[in-house]
């Protein structure tokens, strides 16, 4: 009863919060955003349609700006490290209060700057506001709120309950921060993939340096500006930059490196971490397959695939559906359904749709264009295929039965191209998937229980999701991370806390109950006793090792 009476009150307060939220949101719709922090922001906002010309203007301005700025080199990185180390050693980041206050500030930062975040994402990726809101703002806020709510219980030492407790000893596992950690983030979800690990690192009590991706410059700049404003500068820092800055950072000795990005750079990160014996978490990608059986609700399946491909930042997502596998027989039905739903979602002219992200930059545009232009690939397009380099847009494109050895089927696509691979029997899809390196996620659409079971048993991937795509990332109780080529280590929810913590085993013994059995001189009697104790059971061994006196 008590909870019942409290609930309506809570809702009232959130109603109030929501309505004021809405106003600011609508404001964003109707008024031209007024960014004044830098010149390049102004430039961009005056041209809502981000053209290639604007892109190069801002790039050149950025380089001059950078030239003016002092270079961030190894020496600077060393100084930064020293500063953060001092701050960490002072012990302040370890306190519950510090962690909470920082997490609260981050929550507040997101709440107060929704507009700016949406704007930056629009500049960097033409990300639709809805997507920005759902996959960046809400997700980040969600993990912040969860950490705020659960931190106390996460920090509690875990009692190790065993037979040990029956002896004069007790044991517990204490979570302690690792120290000064580095988070290298990426450009496709520049806010979520920067702040989510940072939240974990702060929750675990570490000092953090965040290196956002230079490929999403507006987001990178905004992150740098906002974090400086909202969180404790002595322990949480942002270093903007590209290869040179990252290399300078990697020269330092970190207590953990959390990297999101491609496998190539992942290798470099891990190799430089090896020099200092720094543990790493690598969040990479891979070709995430979606197996589509014929026993399905076709419309729902098509919609969910679209959600997991084009509605996920135009396919520029590490867990986006990379390719579809279905039977020869069923492929035409699936293509029809995808076609219909695509039309409904993005209209007749998807190149003009505001509900699709664009390609991040000319480099990636050309990479994707070359995938499409490859011999024996271009004639396999069954839907879409339009591209516009000036606007960095590629229409949702479906290809049927492209050659297995084409780049499109070899490399992670990371864009709006969806090849459909056909097989005779749906079970053959397992061989297709297992012939490639382990993906970050694998999806299956079917109502066939046996197929589900076989899929779960035979497919190794970072995560498996049946009858949907992508949404497993929103479940904070599931670990998120890769296996094999798709990465190592996991995070989200408590797993983020654990990722940045050391689990310290603590054993308490008393001076009582000491036995001479464990000590030399080893006499035949002792030897016999030890042997007898050990040949029996665990109890015997613990007895002997702990030295519960028996002689």
């Amino acid at each position: 009863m008590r909870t019942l009476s409290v609930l309506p009150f809570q809702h009232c307060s959130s109603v109030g919060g929501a309505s004021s939220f809405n106003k600011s949101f609508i404001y964003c719709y109707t008024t031209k955003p007024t960014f004044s922090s830098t010149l390049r922001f102004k430039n961009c906002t005056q041209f809502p349609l981000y053209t290639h010309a604007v892109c190069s203007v801002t790039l050149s301005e950025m380089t001059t700006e950078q030239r003016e700025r002092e270079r961030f080199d190894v020496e600077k990185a060393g100084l930064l490290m020293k500063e953060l180390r001092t701050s960490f050693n002072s012990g302040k980041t370890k306190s519950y209060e510090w962690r909470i206050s920082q997490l609260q500030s981050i929550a507040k930062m997101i709440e107060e700057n929704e507009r700016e975040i949406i704007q930056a994402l629009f500049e960097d990726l033409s990300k639709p506001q809805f997507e920005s809101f759902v996959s960046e703002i809400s997700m980040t806020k969600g993990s912040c709120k969860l950490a705020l709510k659960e931190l106390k219980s996460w920090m509690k030492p875990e009692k190790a309950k065993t037979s040990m407790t029956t002896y004069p000893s007790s044991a517990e596992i204490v979570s302690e921060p690792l120290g000064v950690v580095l988070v290298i983030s990426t450009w496709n979800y520049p806010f979520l993939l920067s702040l989510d690990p940072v939240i974990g690192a702060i929750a675990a009590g570490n000092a953090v340096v965040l290196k956002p991706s230079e490929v999403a410059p507006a987001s990178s700049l905004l992150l740098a500006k906002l974090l400086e404003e909202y969180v404790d500068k002595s322990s949480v820092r942002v270093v903007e930059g590209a290869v040179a800055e990252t290399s300078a950072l990697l020269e330092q000795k970190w207590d953990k490196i959390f990297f999101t990005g491609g496998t190539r750079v992942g290798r470099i990160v891990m190799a430089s971490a090896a020099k200092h014996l720094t543990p790493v978490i690598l969040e990479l990608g891979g070709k995430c397959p979606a197996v589509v059986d014929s026993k399905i609700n076709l419309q729902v399946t098509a919609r969910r695939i679209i959600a997991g491909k084009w509605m996920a930042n135009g396919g520029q997502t590490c867990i986006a559906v990379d390719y579809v596998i279905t039977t020869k027989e069923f492929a035409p039905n699936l293509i029809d359904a995808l076609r219909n739903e695509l039309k409904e979602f993005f209209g007749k002219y998807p190149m003009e749709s505001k509900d699709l992200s664009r390609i991040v930059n000319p480099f990636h545009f050309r990479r994707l264009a070359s995938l499409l232009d490859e011999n024996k690939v271009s004639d396999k397009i069954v839907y879409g295929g339009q591209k516009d380099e000036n606007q960095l847009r590629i229409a949702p494109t479906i290809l049927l039965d492209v050659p297995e050895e084409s780049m499109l089927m070899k490399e992670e696509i990371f864009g709006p191209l969806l090849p459909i691979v056909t097989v005779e029997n749906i079970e053959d899809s397992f061989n297709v998937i297992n012939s490639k390196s382990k993906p970050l996620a694998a999806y299956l659409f079917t109502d066939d229980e046996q197929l589900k079971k076989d899929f779960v048993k035979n497919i190794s991937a970072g995560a498996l999701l049946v009858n949907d795509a992508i949404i497993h990332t929103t479940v904070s109780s599931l670990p998120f991370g890769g296996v094999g080529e798709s990465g190592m280590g996991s995070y989200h929810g408590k797993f983020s806390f654990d990722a940045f913590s050391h689990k310290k085993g603590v054993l308490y013994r008393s001076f009582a109950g000491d036995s001479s059995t464990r000590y030399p001189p080893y006499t035949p009697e002792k030897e016999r006793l030890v042997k007898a104790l050990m040949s029996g059971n665990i109890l015997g061994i613990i007895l002997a090792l702990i030295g519960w006196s028996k002689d």
Partner: protein
Amino acid sequence: MEKMEEIEGSIADLRTTFRSRKTTSVAWRKNQLRGLIELVQDNEQKIAKALYQDLGKHPAEVYRDEIGIVKKSANHALSCVEKWMAPKKNRLPLLYFPASAQVLSEPLGVVLIFASWNFPISLALDPLIGAIAAGNTVLLKPSDLAPECAAFLQETIPLYLDCNAIKVINGGADVGEKLLQQKWDKIFFTGSTRVGRIVMTAAAKHLTPVTLELGGKCPAVVDTLSSLSDIKVMAKRIVGGKWAACNGQICIGVDCVLVEKKFASTLIDSLKRTIKKFFGENPKDSNSISRIVNKNHFDRLSKLLKDPRVAASIVHGGSSNEENLFIEPTILLDPPLDSEIMTEEIFGPLLPIITLNNIQESIEFVNSRPKPLVIYAFTKDETFKRQILSETSSGSVVFNDTVVQYAADVLPFGGVGQSGFGRYHGKYSFDNFSHEKPVMQRSFFLEMEPRYPPWNDFKINFFRFAYRFDYFNLVLLLLGLKK
């Protein structure tokens, strides 16, 4: 070159076996664990003999630290493996209804284990237990510095375990290097920081996750104790954790002791007495103490003592016999902190005692050095215990004892910082060699329309409430009662 072919052939076999999926069954895992228990049980004598030849280890130490440990771990895994394998159900928020989620532990694939020479049997078989329990195929590379044990493992393992799934390869650094060129699904390494770096660098090429079990200077902080019986117990446990465990050649051995000036002489006296009690007047004649593993390490340790400033600080022992590779239990009082004996991990029978004005200073002492694998602290002061726990960092902490934490299956065993990363023992071993695969299942029923474009305010509001799990407002919104 021949070796390379052998390695590639072995890996190909292991990969084929893994693909056949037989190692994933409970029955296979249990059979192998039983086989492992039989292996150590049937070969107690042989193991003891090999260890005597490699390290001069007394059979009692062999039972306590090698055979017993392996049997205990294998038995524990045998009784728990089914429980560990069981999928973990997850509760999903109502928003996802109808859906279910679970986390499955699946084997990583073909894994490589590098064992070390100081506990050549347990440090080879203990990780192996975890790898088997998790359903992997394994290539084990024992240390060539304990050649008898390495030969024993290579000969005996195929007799007891599935030789298509578990293989042993012997050799020196050249073989290790060749192994590292291959692509593994996990590398488990026990050894030095120097080689640890090489292992991780090689692993980076293939994005292979690694566990590094390294060492470090593990201090024993000894508070001033007043009760005579406590002092006795403390001395026994320090002497036990230093010289009675492979004569100090152990990664969790007591590397040095930190003590208050006023208590130093009491401590040294009682250590001396205990050494005498354990190893007699002439420790070199004692059969209860291991020898130094080889000439290289003997020279390394002798060199530590050659520094005249260090030699001057010897307060007990100090003699050695090159022929028998024996170094006497040696205690040093306040050797210079910049001498090699205080900057490098000792890994041998030398025990420096560092005096402090106040035992609180030990915290700063520990913090100014790389993080050790373990901190031992002998104290009855609860505040000081808490202080050690919260103000220092180490792989683990043990109060009022030494080395026994290795046998506790309930505690994760592993380092932090320079002492390594990744953890094992008990369920942690299983987890170490597993990938936790989340599996989420949804149905086609109940489609959430606001998920899809074209976007509008209604859909944005929907997610605003959905992400807060604010079902009340969600319902209002859906009923059109809310804008």
